[in-house]
């Protein structure tokens, strides 16, 4: 069974500060996705990283896939209250049956104005 560990579990910061969320595993993934979930809604995909060492930027969000394809990070620059939510990483194993994903436990981010 492939496991993804996210850290920290909870993060509370002031508007304008930076934050980083980590997603780690002992397993290798073919791709890794980051989702954001707001209260009362389902998760929504932010980004997919597929190449070891890949860095993707989405406005103030920077996503990195580890060289060994076992870990990933999400960095938010100058966080805003609108960034508040639950961030989930999800990995897809090579030749995963049924297109299945393995989800991390999530990091709850609170950005205070």
């Amino acid at each position, binding site marked *: *069974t492939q496991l993804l560990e*996210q850290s920290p*579990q909870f993060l509370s910061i002031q508007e304008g500060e930076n934050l980083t969320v980590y997603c780690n595993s002992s397993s290798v993934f073919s*791709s890794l*996705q980051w989702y954001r979930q707001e209260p*009362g*809604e*389902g*998760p*929504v*995909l932010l980004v*997919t990283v*597929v190449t070891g060492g890949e860095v993707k930027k989405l406005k103030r969000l920077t996503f990195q896939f580890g060289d060994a394809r076992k870990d990933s990070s999400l960095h938010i620059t100058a966080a805003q209250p609108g960034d508040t939510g639950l961030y*989930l990483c*999800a990995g*897809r194993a090579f030749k995963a*049956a*049924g*297109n*299945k*994903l393995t*989800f*991390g*436990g*999530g990091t709850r981010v609170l950005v205070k104005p």
Partner: protein
Amino acid sequence: DAGITQSPRHKVTETGTPVTLRCHQTENHRYMYWYRQDPGHGLRLIHYSYGVKDTDKGEVSDGYSVSRSKTEDFLLTLESATSSQTSVYFCAISESGVSYNEQFFGPGTRLTVL
């Protein structure tokens, strides 16, 4: 937004009663999934389907069954609900070869078993 609906959105039931949750999609995607979400556990896969009448177990399938008689509908049944099945249930869909198999999620069903 992907066309995924779940019904009911909220349900309160008693221990021992059967419960069926419905997921309906209008995207004609091949794969459908049922997850449960509990604090500290992220999303855990219950069952998934890779086609009409083709289903398989996920990591937390005990106490749950599923059926998919049409491409658009995926049903999750709790034969005899227990308090440990109190959770928020999400349905998701995906398609091979589309955007790295991104999964699109429904709005969720909050189930409380008393």
